[in-house]
């Protein structure tokens, strides 16, 4: 079954979550977090559903979704590669790592490879400055990454 299929079941899970909320006032962001957790991202269909659940104008929901960088409107790749662009990583060469990664995968930060395998995100500080520059793939942290090491990191995930 396709991972991002917008199944009935997922909508029901979201409905149940909203029903369980003690208060709907101000709950939009929490509901969007839940929706993203369930669906993986927030396509229009899901945003509209959230708008109806909370009785909010769709524009309101969209305005919020588009404001926060945590919310994705496009499906993410199977593996999300986060390059930390915190200052500590920046001064230790994170930019070069990011460029190399972009060149390797042929996509820009914020995009997903056509095969849906990888997404790249530039992240603001993982907080592992001692390990700068840091790359995180699906939550696994690679510290003190040197140019040239990127390809082997990617390979690890291609084989899985």
């Amino acid at each position, binding site marked *: 079954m396709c991972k991002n299929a917008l199944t009935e079941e997922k909508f029901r899970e979201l409905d149940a979550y909203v029903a369980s909320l003690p208060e709907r*006032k*101000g*709950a*939009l*962001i*929490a509901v*969007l*977090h839940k929706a993203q957790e369930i669906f993986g991202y927030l396509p229009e269909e899901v945003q509209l559903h959230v708008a109806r659940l909370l009785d909010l104008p769709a524009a309101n929901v969209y*305005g*919020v979704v588009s*404001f*926060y*960088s*945590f*919310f994705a409107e496009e499906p993410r790749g199977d593996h999300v590669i986060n390059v930390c*662009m*915190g*200052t*500590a990583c*920046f*001064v*230790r060469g994170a930019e070069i790592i990011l460029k190399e990664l972009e060149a390797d995968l042929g996509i820009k930060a914020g995009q997903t490879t056509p095969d849906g395998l990888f997404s790249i995100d530039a*992240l*603001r*500080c993982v*907080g592992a*400055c*001692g390990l*700068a520059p840091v790359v995180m793939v699906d939550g696994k942290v690679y510290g003190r990454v040197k140019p040239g090491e990127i390809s082997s990191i990617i390979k690890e995930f291609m084989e899985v």
Partner: protein
Amino acid sequence: MSTYRMHLLVCGGTGCQASDSRQLADNLQAQVLMAGMGKEVQVVTTGCFGFCEKGPIVKVLPDNIFYVEVKPADAEEIVSEHVLKGRPVNRLLYVEPGMKERIAEHREMPFYKKQLRIALRNCGFIDPEDINEYISVDGYQALGKVLTEMTPDALLVLMKKSGLRGRGGGGFPTGLKWEAAARNKSDKKYIICNADEGDPGAFMDRSILEGDPHSVLEAMAIAGYATGADCGYIYIRAEYPLAIHRLVIAIGQARQAGLLGENILGTGFSFDIEIKYGAGAFVCGEETALIHSIEGERGEPTNKPPFPAESGLWEKPTCVNNVETFANVPPIILNGPEWFSSIGSEKSKGTKVFALAGKVNNVGLVEVPMGIKLREIIFDIGGGIKDGKKFKSVQTGGPSGGCIPAEHLDTPIDYENLTRIGSMMGSGGMIVLDEDDCMVNVAKFYLEFTCDESCGKCTPCRVGNKRLHEILTRITEGKGTMKDLDNLKELGGIIKDTALCGLGQTSPNPVLSTMKYFWDEYVAHVVDKRCPAGVCTALLSYYVLPDNCIGCTACRRVCPVSCISGEVKKVHEIDQTKCIKCGACQKACKFGAIVRK
């Protein structure tokens, strides 16, 4: 039970090795063996102890005696006197400048007082997932004390007296903030803990929440008592899963222990806490934006006044403090305001946690009394610059802060001084830059961050910062003019003067401070079309030094755009019009024949 009765710890950090600590360790080992004590005394080489200025350093355990500036030749005396006879070698003990007495116990040494842990007191020592460990180190005693022994008014007096100021950046006196919320009458009030730490390169709040979550919960309840609020929210970045996990556990345990919820400790006071997640917007660190985000809206700041203390969450009086500020509260109550205000500088009391990072040896979280000098943090605690490079600047305060040059390294750090020299305390990011960092590029980096994170509401931040970033980009590409420099300065000043919120009002700081202290570097980019640090690729060129080139063709073979020509055993040449400045040739050359200018 231990096989060794004594340990000699020799610092093997970079600084100490440079002053011959390896030889010292060998000598000590030899002396121990000669004395026939190889089974009783262990000589151990360690990582950096800090205090590199006074290296090499030897620490004797279990006596806790600390020797400084020890030379290899001193090994014999240490072993014969101290190890064998138990008499510390007086002349190797540390003398504080201006003081006559020599100090033996390392805890007494001023260096070790450079770092004083108040906010981080429990981080790394207790199990954050066990409330009993927190209780065993006097956890929730401060809450118990205020609830049973103090009126809210007395508590406000105490907080004001302590001199604690907001650690999130602004430095507003916490007691006054609480008092303002307390004075505003309302049926409902809120306490918010701002854990939306977003400065790139600062993570002290996360550390506190991961290492000592209960101290924040306790302080929030105390703030609730002081202001008359019964409801608290912790607004935390969704990107901090572990901190959230530990907070959830801590809140659950505190509720179960009756330290949150109804009728706490039988005093009739009730207070409960809920977690709200941020969703990736730096501007939500600004308190009005944060409040809108909790309300489920776009995190756009609104004009102040009205301040949240008057009209905040759901238009009720609201008190917003950040994590580190809260973490300071319980010790203040238990040790008294006088104790706290005895630490720090005249206007900035207590300690501040800094995330020391960048081109420094000992990257880490340091908590230091206010008033300490930047030099002490970077060179003593931080162990100096990595790879023996030259210090260039230290950037404090994140995107709101500025770049401080070497000439201000001896400035005592407090809110006012940092602002005076064009930077900020901010949340406590401290990034050390060395000679390889281009200051124009660093300013551009921060501006790019601000542009990405601007909420887009007010003109100066939305359009002004975009224009600043465009000008900086032009300069790093060698297309800048002197007129651009004038415009940068003027526009930067106006953005500071007119932007709506703290984010916009401070966003030009990285540009203005680097222009002030590194003007020559800007001029070099604009006039000479040269990047002195060799960072801005558009301004770099690679050349072959004919004298060094032996014509091995290594460079020619690696060049991805085939812009190097030359025959075997003849001097090669780089076609500047084709060169993409990737630097591959320079790496490939074994003869140092390729230089970057």
